[in-house]
């Protein structure tokens, strides 16, 4: 059915045709990947995690920030599948494969972040499969990745199959795609991402985490970050390639969804902080103090960013292409700083304040690993969107191949 030889030729042509800038970007990304890989090996096998900014008082750092962000993004990206197959919005169809790729690569990044954080990556890969602790949330969350990845890969398979058949697959394929899309979203939110909220919410040691709102909060933030990333990527790609991927109306609709999820997030945030401050639990007050003094910039970026993006997107006039681009960028930054607040600032108030406040600052090798991981998924994304038959470019490319 799928002629591999032909597919390979087409991929080669597609890569060659991509242009000089594309290749230069790929080369830069490769350098970043090498730098990150080198630092990763240094941290893991030579110098130890001591060269990262983490310490006994703030054991988790930027890796976990990245991990939670990318897990969220991968879960949120599944929403596009639901839009296409669940709600029957055919105008979303050109985004199908792209969204699955974003989801899958985000999950890859998340797992890589986790692997960079643990002290023994090889054992970490093996052991949870051998002797799992049924009371540890980390076991459940790490067990879901394989399932989620498998779901997304089969989703990808059917999406490509349908694309190759000219956008209209057989009834069975369409049905499969539908089931997979809905299943993937539910799995992503309920089984993958909400437990990540529980992962933190279960820890009674830290006041900022130990709130029952956190799993729900994680779900809305995940959806917001997934949509924001896809809006951002879609607009940037169509700006660069000067081709419209989806119509303005579709983007505008996505902007509306984003505004809705941002609103829900802010609403929960507001009451979470209100309850924390009003009930005056010492740890809660402490965090409030840190958020409003030493880490006010992150807190402001988080709240004002989310609020600003929501305001832009609430109005029809704001949901233009530049407006959407700005709003989605702000949202991504705001969610990143929300994750930073959630992971790092929550650990800053020491359990024994007499030990002194330790401020976590990422070090160069740590940043290199983060850059390497982000570069790796960007690289894969750039290559895969060129190589795989994407909905909107497939017809054209096929024409070109035939002509050649």
């Amino acid at each position, binding site marked *: 059915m799928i002629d591999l030889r032909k597919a390979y030729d087409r991929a080669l042509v597609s890569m060659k045709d991509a242009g000089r800038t594309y290749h230069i970007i790929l080369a830069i990304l490769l350098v970043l990947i090498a730098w990150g890989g080198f630092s990763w090996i240094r941290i893991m096998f030579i110098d130890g*995690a*001591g060269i990262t900014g983490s310490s006994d008082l703030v054991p988790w750092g930027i890796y976990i920030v990245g991990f939670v962000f990318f897990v969220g993004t991968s879960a949120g990206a599944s929403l596009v599948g639901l839009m296409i197959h669940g709600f029957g919005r055919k105008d979303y169809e050109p985004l199908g494969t792209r969204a699955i790729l974003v989801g899958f690569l985000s999950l890859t990044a998340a797992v890589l972040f986790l692997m960079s954080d643990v002290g023994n990556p090889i054992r970490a890969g093996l052991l949870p499969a051998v002797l799992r602790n049924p009371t540890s949330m980390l076991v459940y969350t790490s067990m879901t990745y394989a399932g989620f990845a498998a779901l997304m890969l089969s989703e990808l398979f059917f999406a490509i199959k349908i694309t190759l058949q000219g956008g209209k697959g057989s009834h069975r394929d369409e049905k499969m795609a539908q089931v997979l899309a809905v299943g993937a979203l539910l799995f992503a939110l309920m089984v993958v991402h909400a437990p990540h909220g529980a992962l933190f919410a279960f820890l009674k040691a830290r006041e900022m985490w130990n709130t029952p709102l956190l799993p729900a909060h994680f779900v809305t933030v995940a959806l917001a970050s997934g949509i924001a990333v896809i809006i951002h990527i879609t607009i940037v790609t169509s700006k660069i390639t000067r081709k419209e991927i989806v119509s303005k109306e579709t983007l505008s609709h996505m902007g509306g969804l984003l505004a809705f999820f941002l609103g829900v997030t802010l609403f929960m945030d507001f009451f979470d902080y209100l309850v924390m401050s009003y009930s005056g639990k010492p740890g809660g007050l402490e965090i409030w103090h840190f958020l409003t003094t030493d880490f006010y910039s992150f807190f402001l970026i988080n709240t004002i960013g989310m609020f600003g993006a929501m305001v832009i997107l609430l109005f029809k006039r704001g949901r233009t292409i530049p407006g959407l681009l700005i709003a989605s960028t702000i949202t991504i930054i705001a969610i990143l700083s929300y994750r930073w607040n959630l992971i790092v600032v929550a650990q800053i108030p020491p359990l024994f304040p007499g030990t002194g406040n330790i401020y976590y600052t990422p070090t160069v090798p740590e940043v290199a690993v983060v850059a390497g991981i982000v570069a790796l998924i960007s690289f894969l994304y750039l290559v895969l969107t060129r190589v795989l038959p994407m909905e909107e470019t497939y017809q054209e490319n096929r024409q070109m191949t035939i002509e050649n």
Partner: protein
Amino acid sequence: MVSRKDKEGQVKKKNLLDSQTSRRSFLKGASIAAAAGSAALVTGCVPGAEAGSSEEFSLKWEEYFKKHYRLMTQEEKDETIARLVKLAKLQYDLDIQMSSRPPQEQVLYGYAFNITRCEGFMDCVKACVKENNQDRKSKTQYIRTFEMEPGQLDPSTGDGKYFHEVPVDNKFYMGVQCFQCENAPCIKACPTKATWREPDGIVVVDYDWCIGCRYCMAACPYWGRRFNWGKPEIPQEEINTKQHYLGNRIRPKGKVEKCTFCVQRTREGKLPACAEACPTGARVFGNLLDPDSEIRYVLKHKKVFRMKEELGTDPKFWYFID
């Protein structure tokens, strides 16, 4: 350093002679086929002269495939200890004694800390670092002492960074460490069951099963756990050679460690290093299940409290006032 390396070389060669037979003997019981196979491979192929480094490699390889401590039979425990002793010889040029002494029945260790008596001399901290082979480079310490203002009874409000002549008038001192919770959040959090509560109440870590995810550190409300951010650096002459598998053996890089009430000492009937070093007798240690023990006397006759009792962690560490 140079001389140590030379010595290492000599030791490796010497070790070769007696290792040939003993290795085979302890391989007999090796339960995991992979480990046995690989070791046989190494013994078969590598010429004797190079066995120094390859022996280290094969020992480490076998170590990698061993079981979880709680699933090991006594023979398997003896085998892994024999390997670890050999590795210590190869790596540190030290003859260590490592025990896997199991918990005693009818024993539940408990600790009481006399706030009135503690004068903040920090002899406990020093003794603990030495006893437990803690990393000197990062200055890892299990115990933290706090200088407290009158009117406070929560060590989280004290000054944990004092270094001046003690005791200061009108201040009092309090130490914190792992409280060996009966209902420990760290045990619940560990994804690999690498940390658990022994029947005698001590929360221990199987360092070889720890993956270093630090979820337990995030879960502990008492800041009771420490991470090996690098390979522990201890001057060779200061290494405590009396070690326990679950206690003070030198930790590998990237593992979580914690206070074990000096399991290597207490299971021999000794006091923990901190209690023995305390010059003021502020630290009371004993068997909670023995009605005649000092700790039971303290619990019965003194006003005691535990840290953050409202979290339901049920720690076995009490503070009391004379």
